[in-house]
C-alpha cells in the first residue's frame, strides 16, 4: 500500500489517545461494524501518528528502527500487519 492510501484510510477512523495507547473506531454506515473498534499499542500508535502525507512507508520504517529496538524487516512487517488490520476492519 502507498502512503497516500494509508493517509486516506486514516480519515475513515476516529482516534482517541488513552495513556500510551490509541483507540480507533471506524466510521460506519451500519450496526454490524459497531464492534470493529480496536486498540493500538505503542508501536501501532507510532505508525498511526506518523502516517501523514509527508511520510512514505520507507520513512516510517526508518523512524521505527530509530525509535524502537527492531530491524527494518520487522518494522516493515509491523506496518503491513497494521495496514491489513485497518483494511479488514472497513470491509
Amino acid at each position: 500500500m502507498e502512503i497516500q492510501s494509508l493517509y486516506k484510510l486514516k480519515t475513515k477512523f476516529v482516534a482517541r489517545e488513552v495513556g500510551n495507547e490509541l483507540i480507533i473506531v471506524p466510521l460506519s454506515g451500519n450496526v454490524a461494524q459497531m464492534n470493529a473498534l480496536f486498540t493500538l499499542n505503542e508501536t501501532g500508535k507510532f505508525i498511526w501518528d506518523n502516517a501523514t502525507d509527508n511520510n512514505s512507508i520507507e520513512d516510517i520504517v526508518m523512524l521505527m528502527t530509530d525509535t524502537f529496538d527492531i530491524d527494518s524487516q520487522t518494522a516493515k512487517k509491523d506496518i503491513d500487519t497494521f495496514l491489513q488490520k485497518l483494511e479488514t476492519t472497513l470491509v
Partner: protein
Amino acid sequence: MKPLWYNSSTALKLNQFSLNIADFSIKLYSESEIDLEEGYLSFLSNTQNHDTTIECFSDINSPIFENKNLVFEAANEIQKFYSIYKFKTDLGFVIYNQQNINEVQQTAILSKNFKHWQIFAKPDEKGNLNPLRYPMGPIIMQYLTVKSEAVMIHASCVFDGEKGRIFTGFSGTGKSTISQIWSEAGNQVINDDRLIIRKTDTGYFVYNTPMYYRDSPKKAPLNSIFLISHYPENKIKKLTGAIAVSKVLAFCIQNNFDRFFIQNNLDFLTALSTQIAVYELGFVPNSSVVDYVLSNETV
C-alpha cells in the same frame, strides 16, 4: 422471551405531555391525541423546561427520504430496524414495523441542533397514533445522549443502596441472570436490558429507560462496570486504559456514521474509566458470584 416490540392496548391518550427520562426532559405534542404506551406512564412529569421537543403528526404528510443521502442502516440478517438519511441540515429517520419490515411505521426529522423532532406516525388499525412505538422511543433516548455527557448501553444494573454495578456483555452472556442473582441477594434491579449512564456534578449515575412493561424511573450511582461471560469458576480481572474504554464502548448503542458521535463516546468513556472500575468477570450462575465480587472488587 421478551418481545422486540410492544403493540398491545395503550393506556393513555393526551395531546401534550412531558416525560422525564434519565433526567432529560422531553415534551411531546400533537393536534391529534397521542397514545402513550404503558411503559412510559411512570415517566410522565410536570417539567416546564425541556431538553427536547417532539411534534407528532399522522403519517399523511410524511417526508420522503428515498432520494436523499443514506448514512446509516440499523439492520441485520433477520431484522431491519431503521434507516437514517441526511435531510437538508437535519437527519431523516425511516422506522420499520418490527412485525412487517416492508412497512414503514414512522418517519421522523431531527433538527440540526438535536433539540426538536417531528415524528410522522402511521395510525394503527384502530386509528391510534403511537409516535414512540418501538424502536422510535429508544432511538429518541439514544439521541438525547449523543450531545451530552452520557451514553446508552445494553446492560443490566443492580444497586445495593450504596453502590451501583453494571453488567454488560454479548447477548446470552447472562445480563438478566446475574441481575436476578443480585436481586435475590437484596439488590434493586435498575434494569436488565438497556440503561443510560450520565455524568453529573456529583458523579456518574445509571438510569433505567421506559420498556415495554411498566416500571418506575430508577437511578443509582455508578461504581463499577463488569464485562461478563459464563465461566466454569468465578474469575475477575481489572481492566484499565484503552482496553477498558474500548471494551465498554463495544456494548454502547452507537450510530457511528458521524465523527462527532464517536468522539463524544470516546471522550465520555475515557473520562469515566478514570473514576469507575471496569472488570472482566467470568461467573458461575449462582449466588456464589455475589460474595466473590464483594470479596475481590477493589472499590
